[in-house]
Structure formats: structure tokens, C-alpha cells
């Protein structure tokens, strides 16, 4: 079960993963464009408008009814950031025909047609989006942005990222800014999107019980919406090794009505190449990647300071984020323990067991992607963006080749950049 990749038109790639293993077929479309202050809010608003209606299915109600009629076919779309890019994501999932009472027209074909139409041919009136939808979705976007403070854990992490990458694309909130919303004009946004769809990087993923790739390509080339897409030199941010300057440790505090404090620490990682990045993956697993990790053991199990205590490595940005939820008065204590763990890593104070178990946690996770269609697609897409194109097996092999020395070496290139603390107060 491997990924098959074909560039159908310049800048537009079809990725298929053919497998009989699942009860469903899953298809995703990713539109990748640069993450920039001037366009971030527009993209977020356009993404909301796309789900309101298409050229032939003019309302959300009718889209929903169609999906229900297709045995509860699931559709979702949204906006995300990955590295310095903003991504439009579209997903559609159908039940395999063999599990349906009467096999009508092939369900995956219907679903593919639908997702293409939603992404490429939004419903329009007078050269813009429908005015009613446009006004409504401006409001929805405002709500989404206002609501970000409600999820304290997510908010704290986002804020730490923003502070650490201030003035850089990755420091931009993926939904943009409230003040920008009112400046957007309907027709201008519609044209903006028309332009984007002709210039962005497009990746189409299909996983499941599928026909030959040739047949899918033929179907795409005949599809009325797909035909509209031209060849392009895609405009997006290609991944590069980032060299962030050595920064002074900076502390950012924010106050809210909370009973638990959130301490998030952003680490700057100076991994220079793929080999070092893979060593960083192992480093992170030892530090805070599992229930056996140093942070979990020392902050939660030994000192009983937290329920949540973990870390994540954002490969595309060469940064690690440590997340904990603690009693506010335990801030100093928790910070001290975390710093000790970082020091331990540098000095190689972790056991052979810690090291091997961390590798095992990673490889087990990778093996499991074979069982999950969505995780598998996400894996391949992040590989695509990182321009690494490693098969899962190869990635596992490289993880296993990492040595203890490489991990210690990388530990020495890691430093605290931003400490973010959300605490109680007005």
C-alpha cells in the first residue's frame, strides 16, 4: 500500500493510495498558497463561502441533502497553516459500494465530482459570491476569531507560536484579523479566489478501493470543473532550512479568568538537514512525546504538577513546543523541572531504554498510519510539502538509524526562545 503520484497538469498532482482494506473511500483536495498578512483573512473568508453552494447545488441545505442521500457521505472543508503556507483543505468520505444495499452509480465518482465542484466552481451571482452568503460568512469568521480564546489550551499554544514567530508568516493566525474583514469586498474576493485557484499548488489525494490510476486521470480530464484548471507555476512557500538567529529567552505573560495556568515553551531547533531533523524527532519523543517521556515523568508523575505535560516538534518550522497545564503558583517549580530536562538531554542524561523506547513510539505510530486513511493522507501531504517524499518504511528505517550521539548533538543546538504563561487575572 504505497502512494502513487502523477502530475496531471503542471502544478496539479494526483496522489492515489489503492487498498481494499477499508470500508470507505477517502478523497482530499489541498490548495496551497503563501501565508501572508494581506491575504490571510481573505483566504479564511473564501474557505467559508465555498461550503455555501456550488454552480449546480446553490445552497448548503441542498449540499447537505445530497450528502445524506449518498448514505451519509461526509464532507468538510477548512483552512490551516503548515509552515509558511495557508492551506485550503477539502475532505469527502463515502462508504464502499460493496457495503451498500443497492449499488447505484459508483459512489466515489459522485463524491469526486462533488468535491471538485465545491472547490472549483462556487455559487456566484453578478460576478461575486451571493451577497447574502457573503455578509453571513463575514459574521461567521468574526465569530471564529472571537471564539479562539475559549479553548485555553489551544489558545495558549497559538499565542506562544505567534510570539515566537512575530513578524514572520508562521506567526500569523490562520483565520486572519477581525479588522480586515470589513475591508473585503464581495466581487474582489470572488476574483481573488478565481485567481488563486489558477495559481496555487493543488494536490488531490484518493485512498480506498479504486480503479486504475489511468481511469481516474481520464475521469478528471473529462470533469467539467477540473477542465477549468490551467497549468501553472504554483505560487507557494517552498520549504527551506530555517536559520533563526540565537534569541534571548523571552517571557510573555497573559491574564485571563482561568483556574489553571498554561505554561507553553517554544524551543528553537537548529537542525540543518534531513538527518538532523530526524534526530530531532527522536529527541522530541524522549523529551515529551509519550507517557514515558522525561517531561511527562518528571512534571506529572514525579512532581505531580500537571495533568497535561507533553511536547511537539513542528518539523516545517524547526521548533518544539512544550505544553503544560499547572497550578499558577507552581510556575517556577515547573519551569525549573523543564529546564533540567533540557539540560539532561544536552548532557546525554537519558538511558538506552529511553532512547530505544522513543524510537519504538515513533515507529509504532508510523506503522499505524497503514490502518488509517486520513492519517496516511496527512503523512503523504506533509512529505509533499517538506519535499522529502519518503515512503513510510523508509522513514521508519531512518528513525532506527539515529544514534544517541546525534540526539545529544541536536540537544546542544536547541534553546529556549519563548516562554508563554497564561495566568489568572483581569
Amino acid at each position: 500500500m504505497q502512494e502513487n503520484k502523477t502530475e496531471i497538469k503542471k502544478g496539479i498532482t494526483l496522489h492515489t493510495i489503492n487498498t481494499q482494506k477499508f470500508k470507505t473511500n477517502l478523497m482530499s483536495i489541498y490548495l496551497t498558497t503563501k501565508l501572508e498578512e494581506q491575504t490571510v483573512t481573505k483566504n479564511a473568508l473564501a474557505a467559508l463561502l465555498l461550503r455555501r453552494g456550488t454552480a449546480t447545488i446553490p445552497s448548503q441545505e441542498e449540499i447537505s441533502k445530497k450528502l445524506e442521500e449518498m448514505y451519509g457521505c461526509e464532507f468538510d472543508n477548512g483552512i490551516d497553516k503548515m509552515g509558511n503556507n495557508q492551506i485550503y483543505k477539502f475532505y469527502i468520505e463515502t462508504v464502499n459500494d460493496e457495503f451498500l444495499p443497492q449499488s447505484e452509480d459508483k459512489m466515489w465518482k459522485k463524491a469526486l465530482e462533488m468535491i471538485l465542484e465545491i472547490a472549483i466552481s462556487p455559487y456566484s451571482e453578478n460576478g461575486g459570491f451571493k451577497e447574502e452568503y457573503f455578509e453571513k460568512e463575514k459574521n461567521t469568521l468574526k465569530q471564529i476569531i472571537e471564539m479562539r480564546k475559549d479553548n485555553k489550551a489551544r489558545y495558549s499554544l497559538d499565542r506562544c507560536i505567534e510570539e515566537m514567530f512575530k513578524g514572520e508568516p508562521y506567526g500569523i493566525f490562520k483565520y486572519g484579523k477581525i479588522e480586515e474583514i470589513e475591508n473585503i469586498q464581495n466581487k474582489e474576493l470572488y476574483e481573488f479566489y478565481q485567481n488563486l485557484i489558477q495559481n496555487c499548488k493543488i494536490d488531490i489525494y484518493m485512498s480506498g478501493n479504486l480503479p486504475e490510476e489511468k481511469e481516474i486521470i481520464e475521469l478528471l480530464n473529462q470533469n467539467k470543473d477540473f477542465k477549468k484548471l490551467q497549468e501553472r507555476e504554483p505560487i507557494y512557500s517552498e520549504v527551506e532550512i530555517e536559520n533563526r538567529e540565537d534569541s534571548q529567552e523571552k517571557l510573555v505573560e497573559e491574564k485571563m479568568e482561568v483556574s489553571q495556568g498554561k505554561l507553553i515553551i517554544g524551543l528553537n531547533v537548529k537542525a540543518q538537514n534531513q538527518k538532523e531533523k530526524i534526530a530531532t524527532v527522536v529527541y522530541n519523543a524522549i523529551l515529551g512525546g509519550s507517557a514515558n517521556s522525561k517531561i511527562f515523568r518528571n512534571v506529572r508523575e514525579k512532581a505531580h504538577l500537571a495533568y497535561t505535560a507533553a511536547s511537539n516538534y513542528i518539523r516545517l518550522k524547526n521548533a518544539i513546543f512544550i505544553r503544560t497545564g499547572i497550578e499558577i503558583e507552581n510556575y517556577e517549580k515547573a519551569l525549573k523541572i523543564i529546564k533540567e530536562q533540557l539540560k539532561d538531554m544536552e548532557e546525554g542524561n537519558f538511558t538506552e531504554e529511553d532512547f530505544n523506547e522513543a524510537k519504538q513510539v515513533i515507529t509504532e505510530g508510523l506503522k499505524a498510519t497503514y490502518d488509517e486513511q486520513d492519517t496516511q493522507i496527512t503523512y503523504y501531504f506533509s512529505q509533499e510539502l517538506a519535499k522529502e517524499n519518503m515512503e513510510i518504511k523508509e522513514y521508519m528505517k531512518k528513525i532506527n538509524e539515529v544514534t544517541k550521539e546525534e540526539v545529544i548533538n541536536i540537544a546542544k543546538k536547541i534553546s529556549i526562545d519563548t516562554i508563554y504563561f497564561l495566568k489568572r487575572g483581569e
Partner: protein
Amino acid sequence: MQVIENLKVKEKLYTEKLENGLTVMIIPKKDVQKKYVIWGTKYGSNDSEFIVPGETEATKVPNGIAHFLEHKMFEQENGTDSLFALTSMGVSANAYTTNDQTAYLFEGIENFYEALTELMHTVQHPYFTDENVEKEKGIIAQEIKMYEDTPEWRVYLNAIKAMYKYHPVRIDTAGTVESISKITKETLYKCYNTFYNPSNMILVICGDFEPEELLEEVKKRLIETPANGEIKRIYPQEPEEINQEKIEEQMQVSTPLYTIGIKVGKLQEEVKAGLAIEILLDLLVGPSSQMYQKLYSEGTVFGEFNYSYETSRDYSHIIIGGTSKDPQKVYQEFKKRVAELKEKGINKEDFERLRKKLYGNLIKEFEDVSHIARMFLSDAINDINSFDYLEEIESVNLEYATQILNQIFNEEKMVISIIKN
């Protein structure tokens, strides 16, 4: 083993009740790498008063003890923590407690039997000391506080409190910082010995296995424990009526959150009724419903409603939630739509379409090994075989759905909980 096959979803269940009373259920999944084991006991936060088999007096224990017990089970007498031991084997282990069950589980690919040994040993060997009970109180207090800061959880729990007057479902699964402070090792052992008897437990495994062989492996790992008698669970007499129609609480949120509840009670033909309720909810508040379309386009709500039918041994209720600038308006609109649907009747075309959706959703439940195992466990706790939904769906027709609509969707059984600034 007894074999139950479902031809619609093309899966089989192998099940056996062992001599010590333990029920073992195995769902083989060909060509899947992941293996999932979950060992559950019919014991949750609702069970705070009971009569131990062989005793005559009722025992009352502090709220949150089932959850506390779950946390403490991983600690072993030799000083190790089996959560770490399991993680070291490369599997990912966890446990959870709900109102009516506690479960221990792991998911993994390699070292399956080694991990099975560890998990089964853990669940069969409690080790509580004054000291380790004391230190756990700090961790759980942080967990309770995390939930306290989560408006989604608070608004949900308040809706439950609005529906139920006395039933313990109205108490937070984890208890309170105050209630858990009263927990001692003696009460923990008492609860363990009562509820962790094999006759009160169900073990479910899903993955690429030969069921009979696997059953033997399970048997090898069981220590000898005789089945105990019936545990008498004491729940307060819960009236059919709701407790109070509305609970409002203040929290820092950008947009008010609300949960509408409908108190249902225990139903006949649970599976069939549950399916009908799901179709009715889709019809009333689903993404294609008139109510959602109207409230969305006028700006009262900003996203789809979350809704579900929750059922346990002795009660059930409907939950509808979301965020809105005007929760009262959502509530009024819901009542209006229910009345309208009762008056005009269910449209045949809508009904058929939503039944198709439900059929597809039921098929999708059998994809992921972890989901399958958890579903079989949760259903079995309530004496339901998970295949039954697929078997029953055809019998849910328009007449039956209409009957359920009239029986259950009654205004006097509805409540609303709101959280706002």
C-alpha cells in the same frame, strides 16, 4: 465460542462467557496492523452506593472514586507503573471512566502478548497505600480544574443537572476536589473487590487474530477468582419529571454556549428506539434541517448543532448543543419545530434519505479497531450486541418514528443550560 456474523458489514463476533463469569468478545479484522484490547467493568461514577455481595448493609463511597481507582490501578507493588511498562513495549495504553463503566486498554502493533500480560496483570493486581493514594489527589485535582475551565464540559453537565433531581449522573465523573480528599485505600480496595470481579467484567479484543487461539491466551493470563454474587446497586428514586428547566452560569466565553436536554427515561426496544431518535434528530436539527438553515442564515447560530442520544442502564436522554448569541431563541425555535413536525407529520422523502445516512454511518462504525472494540464494550455493558443496529434499521419505519416522536419529544421534559459572560 459462539459466532455471530453480520452480512451487511461483513464482520464476525466471537464471544464466550468463561466459568469465572468473564465475558470475552473477539472481533477479527483481517490485514489490519493495529490490535486493540479493552477490559471494562460495569462500574462507573454512578455507582456510589451499593450492597457488596454477601453483606446486608449498603456501602456509600465518596463521589469520584471509580475514576480515582482507575488512576491508581497502574501503580504496581514492585514500585513500577504499568502505564510506563506498556509504553516501553511500544503500545499505547490508557484508561477511562464514564458514568457506567471503567475501562483499561491498549493499542499496538508489536509485542502484543507481552502487553496483554502486563495489562491483564495490572487490572488483576491493585496496590494501594496511604502514601500513593495521597499523592494521586494532586494530579486528579489538576484534571478536575482542567474540566472546570472547559465551558463545553460545564454547559453539558449543567444540562444533566437540570434534567436529573437525584440520580448520580448529575455529578462530575471525577468528583470534586473536596469529595476525592476523603478517599482512602480501604474504600478503594472495597470498591475494587466488589466491581472488579470477572463476573462484572467484559474483555473485548479487535485485530487480526485467530479467535480460539486468542481466547486460550486470555485464559492463561487470568488469575483464579471465583465469580461473586449479584452486586446490588442503589440509585435514588429518580422522578420522570425534570429537575429544573433552566440553568445559567457565568464564565468568560466570547459567545454563549448552550445545551438542550430531553429527559427520556428507560425505553422498550432500546436499539430500535435509539435508531428512530437519531433519524428524528437529523430531521429536526441536522445540517439539512429547516431549523438549522433558518438559524444559520439569520445569524443566530454559527455552526452545526452537536446532538446525540445517550443511554445507560437505568436512564437515557437527548443532548443538543452548540454556541449562539441567543440560546433562548434556539430553544424556542426547537420547541416550535417539534410541535410543527408532530402536527404536519414526517415527510416520507426526508425520512428515507436520513435513514440512508444512518445506514452509511452504521457501516462506518466498523472501520477502526479501537472504535469497534469500544463500541462493542459500551453496548455490551448495556446488554446490547453492536450488530443489532444494522439488523434493526430496516424495521424503523415512518409509523414507528412518528410514535417515538410523540412519545419522547415533549416540552415538559426539555431543559436548557446556558453559559455566558
